[in-house]
């Protein structure tokens, strides 16, 4: 039985697991953006926060993913459902690129532009939303892109704690020593990662200030 035959025969399950996978990656990326961008802004405007915030995000990144899933298991509300746990872990991993690129993007805005804006009487709020963020958006987006691509790969491991997603195929294939089954998980995951990379890369170029 070749791989495409297998994918076709099990297309319902492939689709379901792909959607599960997308859900895990989508929600965790969304959370990472909602938390990471404000943190990046804080780091860029108040350098005191720079080291603790980026340092913490950095350390999180170094924890092996399986171990992190394991650590989080006993946590009361979280441990109840595997997908909550997986989403939290993926969010934590996605934070670093988002925070770092937000910080870099804002710090990279031409100081003359910021000075002119301030001198003209823009409030901090106006300066942030009308000048700094629009000019940093493509750098921020490239951080999100990295986060998404990494998350798609990491999310396969979430199946180890029963959170579902394309990792199911991979782990089942590993257990049964069935390469086809492994590929049935790995290939759709790779396609997801590449499409996200391409789509966000395109958006990034569109939004890059000239």
């Amino acid at each position: 039985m070749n791989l495409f035959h297998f994918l076709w025969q099990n297309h319902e399950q492939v689709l379901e697991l792909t959607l599960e996978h997308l859900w895990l990656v989508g929600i965790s990326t969304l959370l990472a953006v909602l938390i990471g961008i404000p943190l990046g802004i804080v780091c860029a405007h108040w350098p005191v926060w720079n080291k603790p915030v980026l340092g913490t995000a950095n350390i999180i990144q170094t924890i092996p993913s399986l171990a992190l899933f394991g650590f989080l298991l006993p946590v009361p509300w979280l441990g109840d459902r595997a997908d909550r746990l997986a989403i939290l872990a993926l969010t934590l991993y996605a934070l670093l690129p988002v925070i770092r690129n937000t910080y870099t993007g804002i710090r990279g805005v031409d100081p003359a532009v910021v000075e002119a804006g301030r001198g003209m009487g823009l409030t901090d709020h106006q300066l942030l939303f009308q000048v700094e963020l629009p000019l940093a958006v493509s750098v921020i987006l490239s951080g999100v892109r990295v986060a998404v691509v990494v998350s798609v790969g990491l999310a396969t491991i979430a199946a180890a704690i029963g959170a579902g997603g394309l990792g199911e195929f991979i782990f089942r294939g590993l257990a049964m020593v069935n390469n086809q089954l492994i590929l049935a998980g790995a290939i759709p995951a790779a396609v997801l990662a590449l499409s996200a990379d391409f789509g966000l890369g395109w958006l990034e170029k569109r939004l890059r200030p000239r």
Partner: protein
Amino acid sequence: MEPDLAAGPVIEFRDVAYALPNGQRLLSELNLQVQRGETLVLLGRSGSGKTTTLKLVNRLLTPSGGEVRVNGAPSAEGDVIRLRRSIGYVIQDVGLFPHYDVERNIGLVPRIEGWPAERIHRRVEELLQMVGLEAHLASRYPHQLSGGQRQRVGVARALAADPAILLMDEPFGALDAITRDQLQREFLLLQQRLGKTVVFVTHDLREALLLGSRVALMEAGKLVTVLSPKDFLRSTDPLAAAYVRALGGGLDSATNRGAS
């Protein structure tokens, strides 16, 4: 509109000092008045404190001692945003917003002040003409303009909400000699027409003498002297004389080289 307190100076420095957080003094014992409608030039070398002085007016910096008064009121007390919007600000690097076209750049302060779109559009057209730019440039982005055009947009943007005061920090410093010369002349004509109160920072004596109604000479964080351009050329102050010598010397040696 600004309250008309025509009697007093528009900008006044009273015993102003400015020091960095690490204690380094950039400016001390500054006493200076800027009268309505005049162009006061702050002349000095880099590090003399002229840009610091300028930034104290629109509170980009806050004095560590003394008081800066704008329109008769201590600038430290009022709303800083209102203060800045009532003062035009032009810097050497222009600082146009690269993601906005010329029209949006010029119309930014009117827009956040809530002017109706039609009025902003008319104002932008008027300003473009005032600074010698063609109307079709309104839809261009900053990177599509030449250096001279960019600085013209910078001046138009500073004038957008019709501020009574204009602060200019070496606005023509990064331009080539011919463009600079042209913009200086146009600035003079514009200033005759508009009668703004201008504080102009430069290190170029020629520019100072050409544009200033008075020249304030600064050195090492102190105000040395304030003179009219005519008096400046005759001044016996050693520093002022050194500037004049450097200017004249430059011309002489150039002429001599041409002759020999």
